[in-house]
């Protein structure tokens, strides 16, 4: 009885197409925003930031990016790790070549560079579909990791091949480098998450989003009724890579501070983000958040249970993580292929009718 749409009539098309048509949803959203912006920065600790919140926000951006490409437009990509690497290395080169420019601009530019690279790697999608495309994106993944390993210009000829993020300030506060406080890191990531989610929401409810979904659902029919497949697919690659590049740049500069391309951006990363959007829900922005939260939280939870409570050695817990993540993927795919977003939607529908059963 609290959460209902009876009596809630919209009188204009603008009102009808808003993001949160139900009042309680809207209120919930604004409360979350207020807590995220106004409360958490003051109470956040280093542990919470580095273990949970910062990676969650960053992966949420990557998940939204991949969801646009795979969930909305139906182009399976296994190259997310490689594209995050592009974002990270672009950011590194920009930071070291133009040290006086604000890092926020660098991050946005890294996103743009990744968008260009992503579009180029997306060209095969015009001829190749389905699995074949997924394997083609693997080519991108392996090639990019090799590239950033081999061509020493990318890591400024350093002996170790690692890239380190120099300290940068925003409004007088360090956001990168070892001296940056947890809340500053958190706020930078939150800023980009909000920006990306907003853009994603706008795009997916307009004609661009509909073209993407049309290509996903029936690409031949889509073309016959007027969708330009080149434009649609390449724009999906571009927008998706823009987000993934930003995530990669943040992952390197704000979260890790130092990165070795093979470990940080290998194929495991591509799978991780893919799992996030599957568990979270393909074709759903909320799902991207849910999946990212789930897969960031899970290893931490397992470690607490396994190491702290049961006293097991960490490698044993790591093995268990693999078993549980694998089992969960299969379980979700069997029971709820539409992910947490769908489960959430069903819960809300039940809530709409509460206290009546139907």
């Amino acid at each position: 009885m609290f959460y209902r749409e009876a009596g809630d009539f919209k009188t204009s098309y603008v009102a009808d197409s808003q993001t949160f048509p139900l009042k309680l949803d809207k209120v919930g959203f604004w409360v979350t925003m207020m807590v995220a912006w106004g409360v958490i920065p003051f109470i956040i600790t280093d542990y919470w930031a580095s273990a949970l919140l910062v990676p969650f926000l960053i992966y949420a951006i990557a998940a939204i990016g991949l969801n646009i490409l795979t969930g909305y437009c139906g182009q399976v990509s296994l190259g997310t790790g490689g594209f995050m690497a592009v974002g990270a290395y672009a950011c590194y080169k920009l930071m070291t070549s133009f040290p006086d420019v604000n890092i926020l601009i660098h991050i946005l530019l890294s996103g743009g560079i990744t968008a260009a690279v992503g579009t180029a790697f997306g060209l095969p999608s015009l001829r190749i579909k389905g699995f074949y495309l997924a394997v083609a994106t693997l080519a991108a993944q392996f090639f990019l990791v090799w590239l950033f390993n081999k061509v020493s210009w990318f890591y400024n000829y350093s002996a170790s091949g690692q890239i380190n993020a120099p300290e940068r300030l925003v409004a007088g506060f360090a956001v990168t480098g070892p001296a940056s406080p947890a809340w500053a890191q958190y706020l930078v990531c939150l800023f980009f998450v909000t920006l990306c989610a907003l853009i994603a929401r706008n795009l997916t409810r307009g004609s661009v989003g509909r073209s993407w979904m049309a290509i996903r659902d029936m690409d031949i029919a889509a073309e016959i009724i007027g969708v330009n497949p080149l434009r649609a697919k390449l724009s999906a690659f571009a927008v998706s890579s823009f987000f993934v590049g930003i995530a990669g740049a943040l992952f390197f500069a704000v979260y890790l501070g130092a990165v070795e391309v093979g470990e940080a951006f290998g194929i495991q990363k591509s799978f991780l983000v893919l799992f996030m959007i599957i568990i979270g829900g393909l074709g759903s922005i909320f799902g991207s958040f849910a999946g990212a939260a789930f897969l960031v939280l899970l290893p931490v939870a397992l470690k607490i249970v396994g190491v702290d409570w049961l006293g097991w050695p960490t490698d044993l817990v790591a093995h268990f993580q693999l078993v549980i993540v694998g089992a969960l993927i299969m379980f979700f795919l069997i029971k709820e292929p539409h992910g947490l977003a769908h489960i959430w939607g069903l819960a809300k529908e039940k809530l709409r009718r509460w206290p009546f059963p139907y």
Partner: protein
Amino acid sequence: MSADFLYGIEVVINGLMAGVLYALVALGFVLIYKASGIFNYAQGVMALFGALTLTGIMSGQVPFAHLINATFGTHIHNFGWNVPALGAIALTLVVMVGFAWMVQKFVFRHLVGQEPIILFMATIGLAYFLEGMGDLMWGSDIKKLDVGLPQGGSRWIEDITAGLGGDDFYGFFIDKLDMVATLVAAILVISLVMFSQYTKQGRAMRAVADDHQAALSVGISLNYIWILVWSLAGLVALVAGIMWGAKSGVQFSLSLIALKALPVLMLGGFTSIPGAIVGGLIIGVGEKLFEYLIGAPFLGGATENWFAYVLALIFLVFRPQGLFGEKIIERV
């Protein structure tokens, strides 16, 4: 003949042998894909798991030792016995069949009719699960695999061919293990092809690959065929695991074989057995030749990581269904 040219030939021969092994792994994929439309990403991990189980049985390891010790504070590791190679292989095969049965019953039976991407994701989940299981059961340290296969370069071939190229040429260096692997792989490939063409089960498999409904209507049990197919894939995985494991030890990187098979499938088509073979050979030779001629001298080496993919990609752009795959005629 110049030494360089002869070295080039050696590269080609090695490439062909690597190609046969790729073809073997790719076959495992083709079998499952043809019969059920599932692209089994876990094929590589199945090879690793098979090899781990084999070494575990052979050296009498206690399964889940690490876990048992951590929970109960015990220190057991081995049963104390050693199982001879052939017996261990037979036992491992039983395990692989059991695995096939479980996978079919608990996972893919419930996913019938789902879209291909969902099935693919499920096999990635399976890969993670199996990898973790393998680690839990047998431990993640590197194991040495010794089933009595000959190792090292063949001195005999080296000596015979030494005279061919003048003083600079030391004879073809061809690893004995590679030769055995090629032989075994070739035998397996031929038997699989014969099995699928000439036996009743093979025919049933092909029927299921063609059309599930039609196969059901003539009384073929889909479940049984799928278990059969996964078991065969498990056998192929075990053989690949043994070959690779004997060469470089049983460790995680074994599971990355799957990633090598993918370009083979792209080239040969996902549904073709001859395609897997030809594709494997092309990729094997192409990869080694590229590294020898261009990769090592000009690009800093290690191009084998990605060249196969780029080769397959270029191929796909011109022929999206691969060499032998079914031509996709789109109808509206």
